């Protein structure tokens, strides 16, 4: 399929996908800087593929061809490089940046306000960390939005998925706590999202959920659940963005703006105030006029005359009356709920979910080792690698290494007699002879000294575990970068010479294999 051939677009674009790639403060230390070099969250791999690839290919499959990718300015080079070279691009990715310091929190609403001039049509707002399940296509969500915004004036469609919580035992406290569940209220028949229990709400009343009676009388039968998590996939009318621009005090789209937007559906004053803005009256004009002229519509408008004698002589409704009788736009928020039984979905926004998602990718893949002969030759014959493991290209695995249920990145060096179980190694990691890894996530370029034992730890890029050390259940940060500055430069040099290194490694590998 070569869609890239069609250069001109005869039809106006229907949707623009807006992908937000943040710093990934929740994934610290994996996203902490590696020396002076940033480690963007979007490029943290899941199953040896940067997480953003999942979202981008999901968008691609849905037929949306235009993506606005917004990332922090310092990540631009890396992300732009990845997006424009590594990805098979049949669609256009426009990488834009905003200036922000990692600790200063620029809210998603602020970012949207800033880029609103670049968004001229209905848009899909996504986060780079959503790993969509194979059974749920973006198409499903878009179609729901298309149908509902056309028929009854829906303004947005969200997607929530049933979160599968990890076992209590699997949670390592030092890795940070899981976000608390967010209860939502929705109506099942129409798939309408009615209430999101925002952090503000739970602060205000931590004992009770306060549900408006206007909600309950408008939607008398609703469901309330804490099982679902927001996928941060929002299909919105363009007019929603106008509202974002107007309500300047909102900071986070997910935590503040969207819960507020849900309230417009049933709060009368908000409807009156924002209804026209969200759905301009002329928007649905043609359809409704046509509907009014249909014979069916007239019948519906005639009220049954229960008291024929007492009532005044009935007149056929005049066209103007009929016009005013149109149901006002519902301003509904649609919601697609994805059940856990239909496939696993997650947002890779905690270290836990990153590890969890990697494991799930492993359980689904049968492919394990690099196919191309050059990389393949780096893996020693005597290494034991179970089939539920992924090993990246140009990674060297020495003899009698045992690797199970793990993801090994590219350009790693795995020493002799090492044992790696249930771990995720990002690119350029070095595990020296006899080291043991269990349930770890190693940031880019982590070095594990010989015979070190590391279990259930997560490390910052470039961290070094000394030989023979034993570490358990910890987040390992490179504490003092200034002290390591010198080494750092070397590191960078190393990276520049990566290719050469690889060659050398390959040679070494060959040597080894030849020697045997």
């Amino acid at each position: 399929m070569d869609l890239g051939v069609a250069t001109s677009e005869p039809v106006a674009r229907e949707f623009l996908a807006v992908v937000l790639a943040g710093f990934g403060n929740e994934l610290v230390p994996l996203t902490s800087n590696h020396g002076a070099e940033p480690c963007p969250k979007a490029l943290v791999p899941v199953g040896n593929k940067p997480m953003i690839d999942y979202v981008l290919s999901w968008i691609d499959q849905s037929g949306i061809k235009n993506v606005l990718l917004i990332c922090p300015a310092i990540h631009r080079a890396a992300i732009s490089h990845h997006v424009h070279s590594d990805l098979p691009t049949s669609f256009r990715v426009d990488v834009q940046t905003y200036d922000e310091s990692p600790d200063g929190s620029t809210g998603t609403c602020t970012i949207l306000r800033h880029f609103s001039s670049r968004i001229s049509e209905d848009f899909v707002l996504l986060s780079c960390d959503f790993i969509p399940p194979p059974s749920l296509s973006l198409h499903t969500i878009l179609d729901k939005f298309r149908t509902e915004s056309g028929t009854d004036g829906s303004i947005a469609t969200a997607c929530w998925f049933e979160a599968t919580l990890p076992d209590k035992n699997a949670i390592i406290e030092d890795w940070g706590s899981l976000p608390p569940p967010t209860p939502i209220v929705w109506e099942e028949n129409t798939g309408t999202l009615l209430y999101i229990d925002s952090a503000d709400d739970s602060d205000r009343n931590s004992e009770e959920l306060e549900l408006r009676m206007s909600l309950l009388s408008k939607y008398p039968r609703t469901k309330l659940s804490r099982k679902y998590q927001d996928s941060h996939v929002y299909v919105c009318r363009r007019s929603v963005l106008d509202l974002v621009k107007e309500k300047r005090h909102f900071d986070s789209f997910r935590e503040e703006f969207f819960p507020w937007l849900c309230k417009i559906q049933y709060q009368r004053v908000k409807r009156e105030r924002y209804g026209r803005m969200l759905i301009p009256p002329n928007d649905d004009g043609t359809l409704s006029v046509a509907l009014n002229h249909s014979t069916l519509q007239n019948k519906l408008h005639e009220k049954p005359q229960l008291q024929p004698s007492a009532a005044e002589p009935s007149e056929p409704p005049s066209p103007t009356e009929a016009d005013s009788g149109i149901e006002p736009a519902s301003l509904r928020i649609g919601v697609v709920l994805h059940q856990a039984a239909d496939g696993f979905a997650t947002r890779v926004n905690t270290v836990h979910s990153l590890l969890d998602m990697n494991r799930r990718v492993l359980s689904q893949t049968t492919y394990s080792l690099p196919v191309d002969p050059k990389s393949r030759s780096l893996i020693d014959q005597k290494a034991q690698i179970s089939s539920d493991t992924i090993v990246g290209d140009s990674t060297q695995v020495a003899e009698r290494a045992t690797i199970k249920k793990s993801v090994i990145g590219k350009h790693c060096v795995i020493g002799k007699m090492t044992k790696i179980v249930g771990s995720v190694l990002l690119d350029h990691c070095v595990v020296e002879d006899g080291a043991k890894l269990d349930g770890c996530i190693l940031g880019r370029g982590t070095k594990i000294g010989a015979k070190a034992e590391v279990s259930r730890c997560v490390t910052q890029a470039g961290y070094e575990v000394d030989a023979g050390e034993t570490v358990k259940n910890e987040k390992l940060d490179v504490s003092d970068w200034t002290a390591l500055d010198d080494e750092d430069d070397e590191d960078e040099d190393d990276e520049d010479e990566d290719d050469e290194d690889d060659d050398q490694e390959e040679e070494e590998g060959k040597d080894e294999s030849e020697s045997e």
Partner: protein
Amino acid sequence: MPPKFSTGKEKLLGDEDEVLQAVVLADSFNKRFRPLTTRKPRCLLPICNAPLLDWTFESLALAGVQEIFVICRSHSEQVKNAIAYGFFLLFSAEKTYTFASESRWSKPGSGIKIVPIMTAKETFSPGDAMRDIYTRGLVTGDFVLVMGDLVSNVKIDEVVKAHKERRKTNKDAIMTMVVKESGSKHRTRPTGNSSIFVIDPETSECLYYDAVIGYPPKTVANVPREILAEHPEVEIRNDLLDCSIDVCSVEVPSLFQDNFDYLDIRRDFVHGVLTSDLLMKNIYCYVAKEGYAARVQDTKSYQSISKDIISRWTFPLVPDNNHPGGEVYEHRQGNKYIARDGSVVLARTSRIGNNCLIGPSTQVSDDAQIISSVIGRNCVIGAGTLIDNSYVFDGTTIGPGCIVQQSIIGSGVNIRENTRISKGSLVADEVVVGPNAVLEPFQKLSKKRADGDDEDIDSEEEDLEFDEELIKAKLGTDSNAIIWPRDPPDEDEDEEGIENYKNQRFMRLGDDVADLAYSDEGSLSSDEDTDLSDSDSDSDMYPGTLPTSSTTSLTLESSVVAASDAVAVSEFQAEVTQSLERAFAEGHSVDNAAVELKTLRMASNVPLLRVREAVIAAIVEKIEIVEGGGIPQRQEIAKVINRWGPLIDKIGGVDAVETVTLLQSHCAKSKRLPLFPQILVALYQADIVEEVDMRKWHANPASKGEGVAPGPMKDGLRKCWDVGAAILEQLNQQESDSEEESG
């Protein structure tokens, strides 16, 4: 402990395994049908020409109930007679009861044993009745609890089966409530008294119950978060019609006995059990998918249930089949029911509209029109009379040229010619109205009582004052009626909750509550405005959108209330001062003084803030000003604060920030202004006020005197605030000092 009252019966029941018992609360415990119910209990009022209680029995018989206890309070003799001898026709002025036949229920072949239980007059609520059931030891197993005004064709036996099944696995499942899907705006679903159920869709356990009344409108439903902990996904239902059919286990009456403050079965018992951390009992819902069940709990539901019966929702309980009164009706096209015995006389030019029911031996004269109404037995409808959406009981005569709209006319009433009965009127038995009278909407009439009438009299009826001349002028020369006051709002305002006047309007026949329904939206929106004011950016965007006429009327009322409140508050303050002076003088203990204050507060129903204000004022004034100040002054302050300071926190709640604020505002207007810092320090030293509280107070812009008109008051506030700042500064220094020391 239940008394060994009916050992014989228990033995009997023990022999027959699984006798399904039912308890019928045949009293409404409210006055919504007044004055129709002044001489007759509500459960004997006819609906579609059969007494309500009969419909209830019929519903229970359908469910296979074998033993029914009927708890009756008001007019209990009548209920008892009705059960024993059959339901009577009461239409002669001499009050001779003409029995239609022997009661079907008391015949040996009926298969149902009905036991009337006369309960004391002091039984004021369903809760009291349940306690009575407990003390009498009536029920021996699972039983069905219904109200004496139930019309239902729900298969209660299935509910009982489900309940027993559940009891086998879960001993704590004490009750199953039958609810019916209806939609939130169903005509039979009472607006003034509906409910929200939170149900686990898997087990149909009821997790939370909240009653909703029409006025004052409820704006938010508070669903406790903790239910989500055990039940990750629940359903919130605002579309269920509460049928008031409960299948209860035997411990339910004992729970009422243990919790003597439970009055209402839903609002107190269900709510109490579900929110209690101690009881650990479960209540389940049975959502009836099919069938019909509703209670005649007010005049509005009387109308809607009449219509439901006529439009055959209650099948097989319909007038032409299984009519509880034992009469036979012919079902004609358009849901017209005419008594089949051929005694009905319809003039050729009379018109009977759809959805009507005409009882036996009734005559309808020429040109009379009857629309969607029910006419009882032996009635006479005069020529040219219009009866529209009204309910006329037995033996009533309506003269020619009358108009009756959306009203209930009792039995034996005589409405003379050319009278107009406007919507919502209730005319009690044996009243004579007219001729040429015009009743205002929602008028209530009953017959003047002859002296020496020894029947049990509604006490309120006696109090009615009436001016004979005025009544003659209003109701026609021949009238024997008295006019009931149309609930003056100011009188009934003090009734809280469901029985308040405005909420009652939702339950009134013919009242569309247009104004209240609108103000409901209005108040919602005003609430909304405060919501928006958090976001200052747009509060001034559309200034003119809001205030509606109805909201202004509401504010007027609230200002009246506020004025009366102000009087109450000043009275209260005087009393508190007196009681404290006494306490100071006689040297009471702090605890005793606190108890006294609490009692005072209960009696005058003022917010806690006022109590605190008064206490602080009294304590401050107690401090004597020592000339020259200095150490003696400080000692004096410390003495008073140490002795009486603890009282501030004993009056029912601890809120130190408020304490400081009140102290400030009192000092600002008192001549003890210079003492403010010393008192504050004394309070701090006595641990009544913590440093955190002082900081909070200090951070509050109101403490700076913002929003107060310039003048001595503002200056005072400002001074206090400055002094407070100095104290905080000192505390800061001390802290940093101590830190330095420790560090």
